[in-house]
């Protein structure tokens, strides 16, 4: 993996873009969980 990224520097940038989107997706998942909890408590 490290050797592949060393040989193909564009994939280093793609990896960083992936890190950004995984981080934002994780945050969205957290918000989604809170909305679901709110919906469940409203339904009770």
């Amino acid at each position, binding site marked *: 993996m*490290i050797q592949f*990224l*060393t040989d193909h*520097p*564009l994939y*280093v*940038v*793609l*990896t*960083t*873009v992936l*890190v*950004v989107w995984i*981080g*934002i997706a994780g*945050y*969205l998942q957290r*918000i989604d969980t*809170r*909305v679901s909890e*709110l919906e469940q*408590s*409203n339904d009770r």
Partner: protein
Amino acid sequence: MKLVVMLVGILGGLVLMSFPGGIDRAKPSWWKLLTVLSMALTCIVGLFPPLAGSITDVVIQHRADSLKVVPALVRIVPNTAGTAPGIVTLTDARDQRVVVDGRPSPDVSAELAGLPQGADLVLGLKRMDRDNIFEISSVVAVKPLITMPYIVGLEERARIMFFHVPLSWIATIAYFLTMLASIRHLRTRRLEHDDVAVVTAALGTLFTVLATLTGAVWAKFNWGTFWNWDPRQTSIMLLMLIYAAYFLLRSTIEDPDRRARLGSVYAIIAFPTVPFLIFVLPRLLPGLHPGSADDTNLGPLLSPRSDAINPIKTAVFGLALFSFTLVFAWLVNIRLRLARMERRRAFRSEAA
């Protein structure tokens, strides 16, 4: 010019953060479409245009690594293909006073014969015995619409600027908004302003963490290790700890009014460290990061020299700032609406 493009990027995003309807009202579909399209465009123009250096870059790269093939923006000088067998005359597309001989490798000879003479071409070049004879190893692009400059030592990795730098700049804006909302909370004692402070601080921390992680990935392939306590890495870690303490402080206080009041005071005191740790301290100390004290300038973006960064990269960076600011605004918007719903629910259950 550089400053104008960057300001338009940030201010455009910030204006759209509160327009239409305010920071915490549901955004219309066109707003969301604009965010998605600008981010998609940032990824496309940030990642796809080929690198294209000059013939001088090929020579400089040869000094560092004689085996490396460098993409260079050149033109084939018309009617010179037959001057010597197997040799074509090339001129640097950006500076046509630079004229050299190109010797196609067997793999590209046939392809090269069919290329338009006089048009911009990105060819993979390698210096041979002298500074005016180059081996043509590959044809990278024909008549490219836009190209990115080739930076010796960074190459493709220079593109990280469009994704890593906006994260830390927007984190600074987020913490600034935290401070503003905290001041408003202390003046009005309204908890809605405290919600804005918490949400922007949380997103500022998310963006700081992402800037640190993306920087660490880049550092591994540029500096040889993920983490080496460079002043830039140390200062951003300090920043994370300062805002981690903000959330820690809030988590220890039960009463919402007291929590908001103390949190606001902390956020106001904490903010002056942000521009110092992101923009000032790493420039005062020697380090590996661009813009460190032993660099030739303040870094490509903040250097007053106009030639510190290519105009195309400046434009793409402005677009990246705009689109990341919109993504930040969207996340703030969703979180604030959620916080408002949670507050209403708590109020209803207390009233019941």
